[in-house]
């Protein structure tokens, strides 16, 4: 990847992954530590990004927040990827009724804007990390399945697949040893944009109070709590927002870079 933006993307993501993995060592304070005498305090040496309404250290909460965002993103994208690949290959390879049923289901899912769908399901469930993962996966697999189906349709008539079928390869082997490796590129691009999308929807849900529980140090929750004090302490909302924008930007940059690398003519 040559472009500057994709390099910036990789750096941002690397920094965030390190922050998530080593949060307890990097964070200067515990994310749940109350210092009521420090409510709404601005930046100081001890608390570089200041303190929130309960005097908790904003920097530490943002560092721990990477775990929530990246963790949910990774789980949801992995689940969506696995389900999407299996369904997409099956639909594209077999054609016929299976494909028609899949196409209808994906049309219906697309008839729901992703975020509204998440709000609709979340409205009826208790806020929890697991529920957020389930909600986002219910719709997440569709975009992977559509992509994989299209790729399968394009590849399945090529000689090596026909030859594989002729030599009597079993379907799972044909799918994962021969079909799958030929579509890894677009899938990885989709996964990168998928991470950006999932992280954005998770924080939006949490901002509305429909995502992770309010005690979790999540960026969306921090923003929700922060905007209540927007006029007296804007730093409560500014920093978590920058964190969300950075991680989403990172994955979008990476996705753009990967796509250009795979299809240089569109650059």
């Amino acid at each position, binding site marked *: 990847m040559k472009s500057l933006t994709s390099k910036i993307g990789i750096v941002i993501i690397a920094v965030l992954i390190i922050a998530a993995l080593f949060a307890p060592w990097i964070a200067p304070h515990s994310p749940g530590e109350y210092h009521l005498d420090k409510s709404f305090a601005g930046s100081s040496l001890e608390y570089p990004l200041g303190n929130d309404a309960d005097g908790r250290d904003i920097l530490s909460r943002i560092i721990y927040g990477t775990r929530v965002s990246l963790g949910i993103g990774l789980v949801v994208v992995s689940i969506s990827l696995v389900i999407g690949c299996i369904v997409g290959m099956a639909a594209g390879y077999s054609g016929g009724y299976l494909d028609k049923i899949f196409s209808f289901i994906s049309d219906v899912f697309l008839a*729901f*804007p992703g975020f509204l769908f998440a709000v*609709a399901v979340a409205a*009826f*469930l208790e806020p929890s990390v697991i529920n957020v993962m389930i909600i986002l996966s219910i719709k997440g697999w569709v975009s992977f399945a559509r992509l994989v189906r299209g790729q399968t349709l394009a590849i399945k008539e090529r000689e090596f697949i026909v030859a594989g079928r002729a030599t009597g390869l079993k379907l799972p082997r044909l799918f994962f040893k021969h079909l799958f490796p030929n579509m890894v590129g677009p899938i990885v691009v989709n996964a990168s944009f998928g991470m950006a999308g999932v992280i954005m929807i998770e924080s939006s849900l949490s901002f509305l109070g429909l995502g992770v529980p309010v005690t979790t140090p999540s960026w*969306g929750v921090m923003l929700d709590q922060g905007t209540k004090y927007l*006029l007296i302490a804007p730093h409560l909302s500014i920093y978590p927002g920058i964190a969300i*924008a950075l991680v989403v930007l990172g994955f979008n940059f990476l996705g753009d870079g990967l796509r250009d690398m795979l299809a240089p003519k569109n650059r």
Partner: protein
Amino acid sequence: MILSYIIKRLLSALPVLLAVSTIVFFLIHAIPGDPVDLIVGEHALAVDRAELAHELHLDEPVITQYGKFLGGLATGDWGKSIYDRQPVLKHIAQRFGATFILAVCAMFIAVAISIPIGIVAAVKKGSFWDQAAMFFALLGISIPNFWLGPVLILVFSVELGILPISGRDSLVSLILPSITLGAALAAMLSRLTRSSMIEEIKRDYVITARAKGLSEKSVIFKHALRNALNPVITIVGLQVGALLAGTVITEKIFNWPGVGMLLLDSISRRDYPLVQGCILVISFAYVLVNTVTDCMYRVADPRVKL
């Protein structure tokens, strides 16, 4: 022929609407626990519980409930709000206008900003302006609107004091919510216009147009742009859904009295008939807009077979 296509296309949206309604219906019935408990609490009187269960048809078999639900949808009886016993559709009708205006303004701002930017970036491809525009476009896609909104309030309402913080008193109070809602779409459409224009500029007819001595202005605006806008129109239609869903957040930030606020209020009051109504009305609007854009697209581009 065009008319019969439009009718056919509208009819084909019906199964999708039916499926969407079915999903919303079963979503509510898949909630773990008794909905009556969720609404009135476990300690309510048995009489009240039975009355509520009867009113929501919860004392009947699920399949009968489903039949009544679909029948109600078709005949305009979307149930009653548990909170104030008013018909769901009446609540929605009171709020829909505010959401509609917000969405239209956001869409207008997005299109007005993005298409000129996309054209300039494509014509000056690789230049500083192109790179700067595309950097800001990617930034625009990545900034959450629930951050952009508060920041706009801080800058324009608190620091500069030129625009109202919230509410819906005058046209001026539309400005910040529309920008908040439309920014991501503007960013996305600039990227799309740019790539679509770059594709078109490379084509033979553009070379021909230039060869026969047309001015650059005429080549770009009369020839390339008209073809480049087709995919943009399609995406605008598809993105109306994201825009309508985004109103939930924008309305919360700016205290805008639309369907999004109604949805959030109903969720916190556990007013499930109203929650269901809000979700259905937004989804229906989305399906309808997509169908209409699809028709427009095909009418505008005679090459597409009807």
